[in-house]
């Protein structure tokens, strides 16, 4: 840990040696100070990665089970808090009001499911990866392969949003166009993951968490203070800002004899805008059903994401698995309590028509800029957002590479491969996946949070039912698992097909109906229950689970 502290001190000294500069435009130009901060932060990550690099496959996949509860909690939080949390969530609330809160609740409430239904049991089962568990529990090589493929696809879908977020921040800092920004950002994150592996990643995740939290929280304290809200606890103080948005603030807005203004000199004023806070407001184009469907899909998806489940293998004891969830959730909530404050301040600061339409996914950084926050701090915020995306991407790429090398290559293609070959295959898998994700991220298929939610729905329809029934019902057998996975896959394919056709301007039978009820952002609301039902029905009608599996579950997993 001393090495980490030293590097943090080095990083801090770089920050303090820089002078603040003022920003006159939200976008478009190269920003020197944020660029230096970004480079310093990235260098720190690479150094941590090098110091704690993986030495063998066990280290690469599961960090040698050397991580403490709090450390694991930080890693869970850092691994979890992606560009979707730091950038996307505030953007959703900024653009869609109360419906954006479905993401806040969905991405935290899922941890309750994860804890009470999965964490300890997964640790007790004693497997490294999700396909390992599924292949073993359902005594099926086919299911192992299928779940490995889904692990890769889920990681892939999740990464697309992250690469988009990395691209946005690189674009903002470097003043490049989106395409080059995504290509440069993707190359850096790939390089880092290849150097470090998961043991480096786990240490790095702790450093990244600290950077994310500090960079994300500090601007909100400053803005709350500056605009006369309760700044000692801005996560509560912004409540008055929400009410101000609903009721409107007349101009000029004077506090202590000083007119409150944004960085452009516009009044800190707004017309009454109840649509920001009122539930499923018609003007936001969202509905009650969508709120419920998004929230449910994200919650269930949380408990089925392979790279999240995989984190429970790295804790030394079962009890650590449980408490690491609590720590992880607490660390996550620190950021999630704060994200809505960005959307509220963003709404107030961008209300002047001169500001124009702002990209929702960059609203966090724009808000800090419009709030007149020091460039140094805004730069740190952007670097924090990139850290969030980096930490998640590295976890996802490791999960995807694990599925590729450990579950497909070693178990299926070449069981006699040496650890050295396995590591090489994992790295090749990482590169292939990284390049493919970059290409898809360049297509800009949706907002960050929406893109990421595809991965959640996919996980909820495929992996989650297998884990839930695999752990909690000895009667769930191979045939049932296959039927459940098939059902989840069909729902996933239908939803994604309709989305792609709709996006390309085409139309299939029932296009409008399917696009609403089986929307690609939340199709798990029906896909997950259907997959569970199919699994149960087919399991009841087919040959029972072998005795040794039932015995193992009863004696090892459920004491």
């Amino acid at each position, binding site marked *: 840990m001393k090495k980490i502290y030293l590097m943090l001190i080095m990083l801090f000294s770089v920050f303090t040696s820089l002078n603040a500069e003022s920003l006159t435009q939200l976008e478009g130009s190269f920003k020197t100070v944020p660029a230096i901060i970004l480079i310093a932060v990235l260098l720190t990550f690479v150094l941590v990665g090098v110091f704690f690099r993986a030495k063998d496959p066990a280290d690469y996949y599961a960090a040698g089970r050397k991580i403490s509860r709090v450390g694991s909690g930080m890693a869970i939080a850092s691994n979890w808090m992606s560009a979707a949390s730091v950038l996307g969530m505030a953007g959703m609330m900024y653009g869609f009001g109360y419906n954006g809160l479905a993401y806040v609740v969905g991405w935290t409430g899922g*941890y309750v499911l994860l804890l009470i239904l999965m964490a300890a049991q997964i640790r007790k089962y004693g497997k490294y990866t999700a396909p390992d568990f599924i292949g073993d529990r359902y005594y099926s090589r086919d299911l192992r392969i299928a779940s490995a493929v889904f692990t890769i696809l889920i990681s892939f879908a999740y990464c697309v949003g992250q690469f988009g977020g990395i691209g946005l921040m690189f674009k903002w800092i470097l003043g490049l166009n989106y395409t080059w920004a995504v290509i440069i950002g993707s190359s850096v994150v790939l390089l880092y993951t290849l150097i470090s592996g998961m043991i480096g990643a786990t240490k790095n995740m702790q450093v990244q968490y600290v950077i994310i939290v500090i960079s994300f929280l500090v601007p909100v304290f400053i803005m709350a203070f500056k605009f006369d809200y309760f700044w000692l606890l801005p996560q509560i103080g912004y409540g*008055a800002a929400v009410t101000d948005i609903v009721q409107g603030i007349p101009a000029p807005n004077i506090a202590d004899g000083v007119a409150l203004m944004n960085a452009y000199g516009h009044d800190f004023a*707004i017309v009454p805008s109840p649509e920001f806070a*009122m539930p*499923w407001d018609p*003007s936001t184009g969202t509905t009650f059903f969508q709120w419920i469907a998004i929230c449910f899909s994200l919650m269930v998806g949380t408990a089925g994401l392979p790279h999240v489940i995989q984190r429970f293998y790295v804790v030394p004891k*079962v009890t650590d698995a449980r408490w690491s969830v609590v720590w992880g959730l607490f660390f996550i*909530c620190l950021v999630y309590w704060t994200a809505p404050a960005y959307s509220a301040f963003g709404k107030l600061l961008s209300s002047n028509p001169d500001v124009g339409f702002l990209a929702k996914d960059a609203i966090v950084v724009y808000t800090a800029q419009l709030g007149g926050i020091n460039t140094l701090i805004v730069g740190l915020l952007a670097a924090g957002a990139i850290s969030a995306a980096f930490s998640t991407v590295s976890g996802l790429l490791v999960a995807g590479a694990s599925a590729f090398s450990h579950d497909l290559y070693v178990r299926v293609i070449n069981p006699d491969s040496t650890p050295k070959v396995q590591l090489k295959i994992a790295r090749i898998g990482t590169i292939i996946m990284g390049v493919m994700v970059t290409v898809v991220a360049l297509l800009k298929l949706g907002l960050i949070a929406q893109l990421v939610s595809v991965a959640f729905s996919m996980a909820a329809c495929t992996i989650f039912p297998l884990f839930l029934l695999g752990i*909690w019902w000895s009667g769930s057998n191979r045939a049932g698992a296959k039927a459940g996975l098939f059902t989840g896959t069909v729902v996933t394919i239908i939803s994604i097909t309709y989305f792609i056709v709709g996006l390309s301007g085409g139309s299939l039978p029932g296009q409008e109906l399917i696009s609403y009820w089986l929307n690609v952002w939340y199709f798990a609301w029906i896909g997950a229950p259907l997959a569970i039902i199919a699994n149960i029905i087919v399991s009841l009608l087919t040959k029972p689970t072998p005795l040794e599996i039932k015995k193992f579950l009863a004696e090892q997993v*459920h004491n």
Partner: protein
Amino acid sequence: MEPTDQYNFSIFRPRNLHGKKNRNVILSMLLIWVVTVFGFQFLLKGIQEPTPEKSLLMFESTWPEAVKGTLSPEDFQSFLRSLVLVRGKNTVKAEEQDVISEAITVAVFDVVPDSIRSDILLLIANKTRLNSELAQVKDQEYLNIKKEITEIDNTLIRFTEPYSGFSLGSLEATLLISSLRNEYPESLSDKAFTKLPQIMKLYLIHNQSKLTDTKFLGFPFHYFYTAVFLLILFIILCIVYNILIEWRLKKQGVIE
């Protein structure tokens, strides 16, 4: 040979007393989780009422007269105010903003004298030119052009104030002049005429209830509940679950 049903279990049919107690804890937690998250949203949905903003009432009471062109000066100001307050919402889509801006432009140019109208048109044309230059300049040049634009805005506000009632420095005045177009269409287009009442309804009716109108720690209560309280509750649920499970394991001497 071991009997096959000896190891059969499910969450609803545990194998022993420990399992039963464990099941009760899990199901209780799940029930609390479901009711607090989804139950609250269903309650919110159940008691909501579509509630119009004051601006919609202003608009609806003045729209028929506006169509006939027989608005009194006071009603004109109410009508204009309702349009401006919707134009100021930054969730309004670009094409809908165009409709509202068209309505504002027609309304203002209808009431100002011809001489002022031509001055206003000239100023707006200048402002449009300066705005296009603004995108290509930086630093001091940027600030200079900004200053010129502000001066034009102030002049426009002074020109329109006697008719709109929006004084210099008010948010409504800023919104009004930013909505004015550099052409005088004389009357609303058919599209704008049809769409305007729909747009006003869309942006000025909200789902409200006692839960949204009650304030708690400065928040609308429902917002606090969802954005802050639920997250606290999730952490509490996790802590309580861990404590209960570990207490039970310890009591039964189980080492995991």
